[in-house]
């Protein structure tokens, strides 16, 4: 392909690509996102290639390896267009049947379809409840294109927003449109992107930088990963438009080392964009020059913080700088640098193409557009969900997420990544947007959403997230390094049953110093997990401290397992499965757990047949004395 030298050339290229494609020709779209990779999607792809060749369908059916559509729970996902038949959990051995039944026979393979809770099969992607309630304006294209193909992106109208911005709008008009759209940063802070752009645009400096923050590091979050892997061109297009509005000619994509496929796909995309004249000198024949470099992060969570990211870009240790002067004014090498998250950039082409009016028609008063969440934890349908701002937590967790696993009782949902907060059941009808989440002591963050059930101990959860932040703190501020360190020690001792009266208050006192004195956002938000769990689950802290009881039965030091002599049938299952041989007894004899040997792994409770239910988990109460060794079991009626 030669360089595209005008918007008309781009449009001609698009028409040419479309003319070589038949929209009615069947296409098998196979998700090759990271989730499906671990299910073995590459083998599914190979199986399709071979099977189509064997059946003589080669050239009559298209195969496309796409990015992640989000329903990671059910990978490998295969969608057959134009009908949009959605097959889930596809294995290589299912492929011949799909080809013969669906592609040749035009019938459905029932067993691979989604089945709702009433046992009804759903054939089409759009009808599956997980997708039905979503609004996939950003993520939706992932399924429609091969991320390694710029032609696929152009065929979908890609880079038309860039053409519009460069030839029909002044940089000021682009800036104004983004400001009017009230696009708020999707990476955590929720700061209005347009305002940030304007700051960088107006700041004095010889060189101005625009940067994509793809240092996504929250445990359980993969929104940015899926976008960068699945649709890198839309992020590039947003970045180029932003650079035009700001007056920047140099950009970076800061992507973490741990995302090899994202790095590969965005690097390929940059190469293709250069070849097509969409990056480099005189983009699309305009007078605007801009190019991008990919910078791989070295794997520090704190490098997602703007000033730390820029320090790392300069080749130094990724450590936040004091930033009473914003990086938008003084960032990379002291120059004005505008940093936005992957998802924020991905929204830009949409705003330019469809207008701020369209964008602001979605969402709530203060938060516009959609947000992608990584819905994970104890929920039936885990994966990526994109919903309009303002949808309630209940709708996301129950209507899209399909409710909790194994009918367990909901306890809390943790939003905003490790420095977010835990939201209790009483607030499930909270509309999800930037301000509402902050009000209840949590935050939007980059969009992590971890669902917890009755089996989660909230003190243990607070300890987990605080430990994560303690490890990931750069260690410079005393308040953050030592403050979080001491918080971890207190949480540890509470979980070990060594908590003392006054520990909750001491934690609160520490939280205040960590929040007020630490310089960067990591320290300032680090107390959230502890403060929100104290706020909503204080009773659990008190149970640990006062009664030495872990209500959820998680904290090993506070639980013990006991075999009820009147229930035990002497079946020897737990005895055999105990990994530390702590259970004694014999066939027909009451089993006894040696409390000194027991490691509280809970295996005995799991394996004891439910019809016996002989193993009990105790917490906060003494273990009853065991019967003498050799006691015969009491046979239950109707059982042998």
């Amino acid at each position, binding site marked *: 392909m030669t360089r595209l030298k005008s918007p008309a050339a781009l449009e001609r290229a698009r028409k040419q690509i479309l003319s070589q494609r038949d929209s009615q020709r069947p296409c098998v779209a196979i998700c090759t996102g990271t989730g499906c990779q671990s299910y073995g999607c590459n083998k599914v792809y190979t199986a399709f290639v071979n099977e189509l060749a064997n059946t003589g369908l080669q050239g009559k059916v298209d195969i496309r390896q796409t990015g992640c559509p989000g329903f990671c729970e059910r990978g490998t996902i295969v969608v057959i267009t134009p009908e949009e038949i959605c097959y889930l959990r596809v294995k290589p051995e299912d492929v011949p049947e799909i080809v013969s039944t669906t592609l040749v026979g035009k019938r459905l393979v029932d067993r691979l379809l989604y089945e709702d809770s009433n046992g009804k099969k759903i054939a089409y992607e759009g009808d599956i409840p997980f997708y039905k309630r979503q609004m996939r304006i950003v993520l939706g294209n992932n399924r429609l294109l091969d991320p390694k193909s710029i032609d696929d992106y152009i065929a979908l109208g890609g880079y038309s927003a860039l053409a519009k911005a460069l030839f029909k709008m002044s940089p000021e008009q682009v800036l104004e449109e983004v400001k009017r759209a009230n696009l708020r940063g999707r990476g955590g802070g929720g700061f209005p992107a347009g305002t940030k752009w304007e700051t960088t645009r107006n700041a004095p400096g010889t060189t101005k930088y625009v940067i994509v923050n793809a240092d996504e590091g929250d445990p359980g979050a993969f929104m940015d990963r899926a976008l960068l892997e699945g649709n890198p061109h839309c992020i590039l297009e947003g970045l180029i438009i932003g650079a035009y509005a700001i007056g920047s000619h140099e950009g970076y994509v800061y992507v973490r080392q741990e995302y090899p496929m994202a790095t590969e796909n965005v690097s390929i995309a940059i190469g293709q964009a250069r070849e097509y004249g969409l990056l480099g000198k005189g983009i699309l024949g305009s007078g605007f020059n801009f190019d991008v470099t990919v910078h791989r992060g070295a794997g520090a969570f704190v490098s997602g913080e703007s000033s730390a990211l820029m320090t790392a870009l300069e080749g130094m240790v990724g450590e936040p700088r*004091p930033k009473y002067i914003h990086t938008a004014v003084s960032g990379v090498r002291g120059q004005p640098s505008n940093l936005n998250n992957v998802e924020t950039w991905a929204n830009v082409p949409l705003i330019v193409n469809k207008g701020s009016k369209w964008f602001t028609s979605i969402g709530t008063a203060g938060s516009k557009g959609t947000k992608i969440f990584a819905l994970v934890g104890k929920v039936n349908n885990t994966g990526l969900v994109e919903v309009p701002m303002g949808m309630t937590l209940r709708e996301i967790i129950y209507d899209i997420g399909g409710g909790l696993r194994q009918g367990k009782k909901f306890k809390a949902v943790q939003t905003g990544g490790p420095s977010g907060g835990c939201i209790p059941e009483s607030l499930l009808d909270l509309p999800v947007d930037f301000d509402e989440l902050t009000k209840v002591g949590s935050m939007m963050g980059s969009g992590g959403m971890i669902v917890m059930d009755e089996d989660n101990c909230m003190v243990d959860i607070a300890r987990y997230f605080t430990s994560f932040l303690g490890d990931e*703190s750069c260690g410079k501020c*005393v308040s953050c390094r*030592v403050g979080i360190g001491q918080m971890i*020690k207190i949480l540890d001792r509470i979980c070990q049953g060594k908590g003392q009266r006054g520990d909750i208050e001491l934690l609160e006192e520490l939280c205040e110093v960590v929040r*007020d004195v630490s310089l960067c956002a990591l320290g300032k938000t680090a107390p959230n997990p502890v403060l929100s769990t104290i706020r909503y689950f204080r009773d659990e802290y008190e149970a640990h401290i006062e009664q030495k009881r872990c209500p959820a039965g998680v904290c090993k030091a506070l639980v013990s397992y006991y075999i009820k002599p009147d229930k035990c049938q002497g079946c020897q299952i737990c005895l055999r499965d105990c990994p530390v041989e702590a259970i004694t007894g014999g066939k027909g004899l009451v089993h006894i757990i040696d409390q000194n040997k027991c490691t509280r792994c809970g295996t005995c409770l799991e394996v004891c047949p439910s019809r016996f239910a002989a193993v009990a988990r105790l917490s906060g109460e003494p273990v009853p004395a065991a019967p003498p060794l050799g006691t015969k079991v009491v046979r239950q009626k109707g059982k042998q």
Partner: protein
Amino acid sequence: MNKVKLNIDGKEVESEEGMTVLEAARSAGINIPTLCYHEKLAPHAACGICIVEISRGGRSRLVLSCIYNVEDGLVVKTQTPKLIKHRKMLMELMLASSPAIADLARQYGVEKPRFEDKITQCVLCGRCVRYCNEVKKANAITFVGRGINRRVAFVDEAVSKGVCMDCRECFGLCPTGKIPRETDSACFDGLTIQDILFDKKGK
């Protein structure tokens, strides 16, 4: 240089643009306590002791005075109950790992910390690191590790003998006084700064 007028603890202070609040206060004879700060070195903003409350136009917030530049019309408070409480907690946190700063901590009303920590003496104020890098330009020592594992060490312990000039000028800068003033041979006998701070002899 443009003159900037601000108010610190009720006192009208005139200072120059580009100065920090800490510098402006000190030039007016108002003491803001510090620990990691040293006038010869670039501010490090790590210990948090110099925290002050600033307000302008009704909104107030807490900032570190060693890195916050003066602004016209800024109102600064250096001794509110909240600030005093925060400083006390910071001293308490540092004292837990550094008994060497006991005298200093006492000035903030901290006798015995409520926390237990591994005794390392070093409070990671970075004075020695900054002196070696900024003034001596030797770059022999640096921070190593992250979070609770952060420590001061020679850049590369294998080559440190060639890099460290053995000037011993960092000794006197250490607020804990634990970098020994006398060693027998060059380069601290091959010890890391952290080894020396451990104060194996004195405990």
